[in-house]
C-alpha cells in the first residue's frame, strides 16, 4: 500500500514539475493544444502554479513594453541613397557588359570581313616583309591576334579610366 501511495505521489510530483516547466511557455502563448489542456487542467487544482503563471505573465507583459529605441533621424534617407547608388552602379555594369558583348561580336565580324580586304590591299608590301598570303591560316591568326590585343588594350585603358572617375565621384 505504501509503495502504491509513494508511486502516486511521485507521479503527481513529476506531473507538477512538468507543468511548472511549461508555465513560461504558457504565458508566452507558445503551447500546443495538448500542452495547453494539460496546463489548464493542472492550474484548476494548483494555486502555486497559478501564481507562478501570473508571475510569468507579468514578466512577459513587461517585455512587450520595453521602449523601442529611436531610429537615427537620417538612417532611412541614407539607406535609400545608398541603395540608389548601388542600383545605378549595377545598371552601369549591366550596360557595359552588353556593350562589351556587342563589341566582341562586331569585332569578330570585322576581322572575318577584313581578312579578304587585307589580302587584297596588302599583297604588295607584305611580300616585301617576306609574309606571303600563301601562309594562309598562320597569317590570319597573327592578324586576328593583333586586332584583339589592340582591342583588349583599349578596353583595359577605358575600364581603368572609368574606375578612376567613379572613385573620384
Amino acid at each position, binding site marked *: 500500500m505504501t509503495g502504491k501511495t509513494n508511486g502516486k505521489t511521485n507521479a503527481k510530483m513529476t506531473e507538477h514539475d512538468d507543468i511548472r516547466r511549461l508555465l513560461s511557455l504558457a504565458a*508566452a502563448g507558445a503551447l500546443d493544444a495538448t500542452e495547453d489542456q494539460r496546463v489548464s487542467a493542472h492550474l484548476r487544482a494548483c494555486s502555486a502554479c497559478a501564481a507562478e503563471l501570473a*508571475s510569468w505573465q*507579468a514578466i512577459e507583459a513587461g517585455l*512587450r513594453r520595453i521602449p523601442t*529605441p529611436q*531610429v537615427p533621424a537620417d538612417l*532611412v534617407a*541614407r539607406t535609400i541613397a545608398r*541603395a540608389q547608388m548601388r542600383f545605378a552602379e549595377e545598371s552601369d555594369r549591366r550596360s557595359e557588359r552588353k556593350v562589351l558583348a556587342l563589341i566582341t561580336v562586331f569585332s569578330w565580324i570585322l576581322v572575318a570581313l577584313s581578312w579578304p580586304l587585307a589580302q587584297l590591299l596588302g599583297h604588295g608590301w607584305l611580300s616585301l616583309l617576306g609574309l606571303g598570303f600563301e601562309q594562309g591560316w598562320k597569317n590570319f591568326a597573327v592578324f586576328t591576334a593583333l586586332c584583339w590585343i589592340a582591342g583588349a588594350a583599349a578596353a583595359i585603358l577605358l575600364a581603368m579610366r572609368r574606375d578612376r572617375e567613379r572613385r573620384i565621384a
Partner: protein
Amino acid sequence: MGLEAEVARLRRGDLDALAELVTRYQHRLYRYLLRIVRQPAEAEDLFQQTWLRVAGQIARFDPRRNFEAWLFTLARNLAIDHLRRVRPESLEEHEERHSWATPASLRASEPPALDVVIARERTQQLAEAMDALPMMYREVLALRFEEEMKLEEIAEVLNAPLSTVKSRLRRALENLRTGLDTRFPKTEWQ
C-alpha cells in the same frame, strides 16, 4: 499600399517601393539589429546592408513566402556574420554582459507619478536583464515579444525546427528570470 504590392513593385525594379518598405520596417528592423549587436553604429550599418541585400536578392524571393520572416532572416545572417568577425565571443551561449548602464531610451526626463515610476523601473530592470543575456536568448525573446512573431515565423528566421525554438524560448525566459531574481531580488512579478 499593401505589403504584397510593395514587394511586387520592388521585384519589378521600382526603387520607390524599396523606400516604402524601408520606412515601413525602420523601427522594427533597427530595434532587432540593435538587440543583437548592442552597438547603435553597427546596427545602423547592418540596417543599410540588410536593405541592400533585399534589393539585390528580391528577384529570387518567392512571393508566396513570408516577407517579414525573410527580411529578418537576411538581417540576422548579416548580424551574425558581423559578430563572428568582430566579437565572436558574443555568440557563445554563456556569454553575459556585466555592464549595468541604463539604456538611454529608459532614462527619465521628468519626475512622474509613483505607479509610473514603478512600471518604468520594472521595464528598466527587464531591459537590463535582457541586455545581459547571451545573443541566442536575446534574439528569441526579441522576436517573440518585441516583433510578436509566431513560433513558426521565428523558426523560419532562425532556420531551426519548431521544437528548438520552443526549447530556446523556454531557456531564454528561465535565464531572464534567474537574472532578474539575482539582480533585483526585491522585485515581485505579479
